[in-house]
């Protein structure tokens, strides 16, 4: 088992109760583990809530985290995944001064080449939207940087798993059975995309690795 900290995505299926977020984040706090990103949303199952949490830890650590999380009364099931097992796309919004749109022709080319869209234009600024993999949103940011990129407004992340089955089709409440191999309990799969309330996550801050967050 890897003793090196790597990025793990923990997904948690739970009841939607006041205070559960606190209870779950306390599990990380108690172990002095920093949460890289955290998203909460409805899951693909009616009535069931979902947390997606990204951390940089070792595999033994992530296993213990998942065990402790799943132990909480209001948690139905928790899983962990490596980057290889997941896909994520993100939507980035880039805010640029409107004057550049007309003065700097390249900008229009960038937009075309990267299959981005202009979502709003006002006399002061316009906003470009790009959905793609991280390297694609990064590339567009770098391209726009010299042209007075004002801010990156928001990030809508999408998280899913690469394999083919219904993620939670097996998740019958009555059958929840403690199994030690949490991450591998069910065959993971691609989940239908749903945009979640992630809040305003600044895309490019000082610590780039923290900027991802995910949802199903």
């Amino acid at each position, binding site marked *: 088992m890897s003793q090196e900290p790597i990025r793990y995505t923990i997904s948690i299926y*739970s*009841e939607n*109760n*006041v*205070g559960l977020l*606190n*209870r779950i984040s*306390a599990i990380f*706090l*108690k172990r002095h583990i920093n949460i890289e990103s955290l998203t909460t949303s409805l899951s693909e199952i009616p009535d069931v809530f979902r947390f997606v949490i990204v951390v940089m830890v070792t595999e033994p650590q992530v*296993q*213990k985290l998942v*065990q*402790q999380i*799943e*132990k909480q*009364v*209001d*948690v*139905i099931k928790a899983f962990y995944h490596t980057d290889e097992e997941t896909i994520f796309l993100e939507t980035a919004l880039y805010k640029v001064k409107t004057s550049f749109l007309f003065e700097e022709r390249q900008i229009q080319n960038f937009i075309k080449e990267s299959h981005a869209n202009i979502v709003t234009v006002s006399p002061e600024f316009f906003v470009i939207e790009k959905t793609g993999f991280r390297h694609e949103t990064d590339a567009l940011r770098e391209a726009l940087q010299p042209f007075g990129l004002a801010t990156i407004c928001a990030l809508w992340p999408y998280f899913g798993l690469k394999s083919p089955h219904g993620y939670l089709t097996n998740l019958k*409440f*009555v059958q*929840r*059975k*403690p*199994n*030690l191999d949490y991450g591998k309990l069910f065959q993971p799969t691609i989940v239908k995309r749903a945009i979640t309330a992630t809040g305003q996550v600044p895309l490019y801050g000082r610590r780039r690795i923290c900027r991802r967050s995910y949802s199903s």
Partner: protein
Amino acid sequence: MSEKLHISGAEAVIRCLLAEGVDLIYGYPGGAIMPVYDELYKFQDQLHHVLTRHEQGATHAAQGYARTSGKVGVAIATSGPGATNLITGIADAQIDSTPLVCITGQVASHLLGSDAFQETDIIGISTPVTKWNYQITNAEEIPEIMAKAFYIARSGRPGPVLIDITKDAQFAKFDYSYKKCTGVRSYKPVPTLDHDQVKAAAEAINGAKKPLIVWGQGVILGQAEAAFKAFVEKTQIPAAWTILGLSALETAHPLNKGMLGMHGNYAPNLLTQECDVLIAVGMRFDDRVTGRLDAYATQAKVVHLEIDPAEINKNVYADYPVLADCKASLEALTPLVQPKKLDEWMARFDELYKQEYEVVIEKDLRPQKEGLSMGEVIVAINKASKSDAVIVTDVGQHQMVACRYAEFVRSKSNVTSGGLGTMGFALPAAIGAKMGAPDRHVVAVIGDGGYQMTIQELGTIFQTKVGVKIVILNNDFLGMVRQWQQLFFEKRYASTEMTNPDFVAIAKGYYIPAKKVTAREELESAVAEMFATDGPYFLEVVVEKENNVFPMIPTGASLTEIRLS
């Protein structure tokens, strides 16, 4: 129950408690919980409320009650400081898996978040130290949440639950009806026994040449004492205990090989490092038991009978985990295991016991020094109680000595603060322990330091006349810390020596019969008198100031480094 009553939330709280079979609760009133207290007044002939002298005492008393009775302990307090005072006891119950339901009053729901008088975020504060908690803002939620609270507290691996009820929800009237909780969909308290795991464990055990059983509180919590004994007796494998597992198998049992861990017995600690199969039953490999983890029993295959999946592989890798209530797993395992002849292996235990006896035990129990030893006092208690008292201990040297030398013939007889090590635990816990086992002798063995942390509970003892026997082992020191200062800080006794008050006068101030013993000749008769006296009794025993507890495994050392002196 199908009765429909139109009652207040506060009355509903009381009716829920009654419906759960509660007849005794511990608490302290205040503004935000007054509606419930008003109902307690009306229901006082059905539900007895014990007024402790501090809310911490209420939680510890509820813990003591739960530990001797096996039932859920209930503590109740007001908002703000009342609620925060509960926290130490709740944290203690959480780490020691004690079933508690704590009820706190809260400011009215329209005031939440306004920094109202005595408002505190007790849900936020208690979250990391509760098994579950919930804030009720609407009276109609009370029956369902209370039922859920009791179900969660007592099921699976037990633990404390806190229910915070806003004052408006206590006043509001609604149509009450109660239904016991039988399940929570997101919560599976007891894993289903997997027979393949049992078979694999049985094979490992049957193949063992030098097996060792280590058991813990899970045996008591799962009421698995008989199943455990049957397993031990059939296999004839030597068994050793954690201090929370103590008393689950009688002390005199020939296969009971004593205490594990930091101050445990020489043989089971050293032979943990030699055994080939280590069979852990309902214990969680606390670091006080394992010493340095990466050197712990590395030669052994580990069988782990556990109810909580999160404990498997948490500290020690389990080659053969068996997830279930240990009563069920032991009952499934016993028919599959064969009796063993382990003469040579057993002889190793005897041999090491002899070494420990010569260097440590003899000195502890028959000291040559003039001053009394703590061990002698425990022996006197064993003798006077015919080894059948409930011993409640605080935290420190006296705790270790009591666990090492107290003898037991029945389960649920050793009550101590294990995981949190809360000084001040014993006096209030003994009150609850006695109320949970009213027909038994309950002796609180406490250090002079810890006693002064919750000494106000003498008031509770006086008022309720609960027959707790209090034995203070007075060394005028925070002895356990002093021992460490002596061994690891070159005797720099920073703030561990205490100038103590006249403890006898204080007990007498509460009208509790009291006596002080300073000489060996007086000890036995004083202890006998204590047991012969009806009701509470206070006995101070002045012991050697600078005795140390041995054996000892220094923190961070491996079991092999256990010291006899």
